[in-house]
């Protein structure tokens, strides 16, 4: 039996539609005679039979769309025994994907003494204050990549002490470089003001009574939220110094300085600080501090604080005049909360007072704007419930 199959009618054809049969079952058909009309995307084509014989069966029906090679009719060939005739349809040649023959450009081995680091990685390393020369690159030819820098920027994980000492020394170097650069390049001006925390602490006490220990708030969170909201009134302080100019950041990511007990300091960002509720801020604050100290912070959390808050109250210091973290343009400091004599309505009363200070980049803002910012923080802390 010979199979009449859907033919490939062009170099780009994969399927065809039977328009009509030109022969009926039982009809005689000769080689080269038209047996059917088939429609392809381009046009209708009359298709010939490659065999002479009697049509035994018409499998496909007009209107059927079938893949190329599908059996559409059976023809009994005269004078040929059945098995001789089986038409082997070419299985489409397995498109062996030719391996690219052009030799892959493998970057040549590194020149001795020259650090193989991608420009982007070099840029991120300086931002994250990671020292690239200490890293082992995983990129082509041992080049240092973005991922290598990010991995290195994460706080040192729990490692045997010997390593921490090196890590401490290295972190010291990085902080030294950043601080030196900050003092060299950033003309700091400093402002400070005393803020009555009476209302805030009272509100906090009541609030915590209502909250179980897992949801309890610390006053630090109030300070951070106040800073974040105050930035909306003085956005110039929420900026990064890039390419010779301050670029204001559309989002507020307050970096919170966390001191590491084995020495060193990191300031991971709490993203969109201004949009978080106090409860959410507390959870994030707790989480960030815990992971900072455990050394499992994600590097992305390092890379984009838009301002930093440092609070040294607990170490018993009244006022902090900090050094700005480049490329930021401002740093807010809070000292210890201290009971102080405070004049209210002409009378002297005792009030918990905190010294709030601002270090700012004089290339970007002037003292007046800094003062407006600090007084905004003060006003916000007088209505803790609104924070």
């Amino acid at each position, binding site marked *: 039996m010979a199979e009449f*199959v859907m*033919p*490939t*009618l*062009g*170099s780009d054809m994969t399927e065809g539609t039977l328009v009509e049969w030109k022969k009926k079952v039982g009809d005689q058909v000769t*080689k*080269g005679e038209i047996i059917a009309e088939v429609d*392809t995307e*381009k*046009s*209708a*084509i009359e*298709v*010939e039979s*490659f065999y002479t014989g009697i049509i035994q069966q018409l499998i496909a029906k007009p209107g059927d769309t079938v893949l*190329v*090679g599908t059996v559409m009719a059976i023809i009994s060939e005269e004078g040929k025994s059945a098995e001789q005739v089986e*038409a*082997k*349809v*070419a299985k*489409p040649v397995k498109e*062996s994907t*030719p*391996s690219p*023959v052009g030799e892959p450009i493998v970057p040549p081995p590194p020149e001795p003494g020259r650090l193989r680091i991608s420009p982007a990685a070099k840029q991120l390393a300086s931002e994250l204050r990671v020292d690239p020369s200490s890293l082992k690159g995983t990129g082509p030819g041992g080049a240092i990549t973005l991922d290598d820098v990010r991995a290195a920027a994460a706080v040192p994980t729990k490692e045997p002490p010997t390593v921490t000492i090196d890590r401490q020394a290295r972190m010291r170097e990085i902080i030294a470089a950043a601080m030196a650069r900050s003092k060299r390049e950033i003309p700091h001006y400093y402002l400070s003001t005393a803020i009555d925390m009476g209302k805030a602490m009272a509100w906090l006490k009541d609030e915590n009574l209502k909250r179980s220990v897992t949801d309890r708030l610390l006053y630090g969170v109030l300070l951070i939220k106040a800073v974040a909201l105050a930035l909306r009134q003085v956005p110039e302080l929420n900026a990064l110094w890039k390419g010779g100019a301050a670029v204001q950041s559309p989002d507020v990511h307050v970096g919170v300085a966390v001191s590491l007990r084995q020495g060193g300091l990191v300031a991971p960002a709490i993203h969109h600080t201004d949009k978080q509720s106090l409860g959410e801020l507390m959870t994030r604050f707790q989480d960030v501090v815990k992971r900072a100290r455990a050394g499992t912070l994600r590097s992305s959390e390092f890379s984009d604080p838009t301002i930093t808050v440092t609070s040294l109250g607990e170490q018993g210091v009244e006022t902090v005049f900090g050094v700005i973290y480049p490329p930021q343009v401002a740093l807010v400091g809070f000292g210890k909360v201290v009971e102080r004599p405070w004049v209210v309505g002409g009378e002297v009363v005792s009030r918990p007072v905190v010294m709030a200070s601002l270090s700012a980049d004089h290339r970007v803002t002037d003292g007046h704007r800094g003062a407006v910012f600090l007084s905004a923080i003060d006003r916000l802390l007088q209505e803790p419930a609104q924070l």
Partner: protein
Amino acid sequence: MTPPIDRGHGLELLRQMLRIRRFEEKCAELYSLGKIRGFLHLYIGEEAVAVGAMPCLTSEDAIVGTYREHGHALIRGTPMGPLMAELYGKANGCARGRGGSMHFFDAARRFYGGLAIVGGGLPVAVGLALADKMQKRPRVTACFFGDGAVAEGEFHESLNLAALWKLPVLFLCENNLYAMGTALARHQSQPDIAKKADAYAIPAEAVDGMDVLAVESATQQAMNFVRHDGGPYLIEYRTYRFRAHSMYDAELYRTKDEVAQWKQRDPIASFERYLRGNGLLHTDEVEKMETAITAEIEEAVAFAEAGGWESIEDLARDVYTPRQAEASGKVE
């Protein structure tokens, strides 16, 4: 028809035409089965031209062809196996599978290929003839092209240069009335192609391309002219292709009656009638030819099926000639 011919010669002409016809029919079948891919331009209907013209060339002469060159390669002598393998794209093809249907090459037989850019072969043929003339070699270069090529600038430039420098080129135009889907009268202000040669003072004639004997005698005369005069000659074979331009087109540009009418003058059927009419063909001889040809084709298909694919490592081989290869054209 011209006067009766030698019986043996007649049978050979018929056999060769049948060889081409059956080979091309097998190609159509293999194409529909997906064994042959890409573009496929069949020669069915024009067999008389190749079979009549090619034997007039000596083995020293050169041929430059087009993408409808299966028949020319077969008659020139390239075995059917390597041609079929080339159609499959196999490494044992006549161009190592690299060219496919449109690009048959055979250096040993000075068959400079299927060159598939319409008109692209004419300047090359002129150059081959120039080289022969400059090296004083009494050879002729036969350049086949279709009626479509006469619209290309290179046709006019080549005829002019060949005439200007009196070069031994035989310009052989297979006018099958259609440049793909455009009838001759719709793309030529002067459809009489032979007349165009007058503009370059090149002797020319038009010949019935469906009559193998007429083709043979005209081509022989032209060859004699070129060999003795040294200058070019043009023949316009008026012929017709019975199938689509390539696999497949819907042939919207011509009517079924026109095709049927030309099929009345099928070069094989009419020549068979001529041989029988002159008592030169015995009853079962055609059947024997067909059986032999079927066997030759099945053997060629087996040769192609058995062939391997060229290894991918050789992809860049032959982009350039390796240093030690002989500098001038390999044929010399």
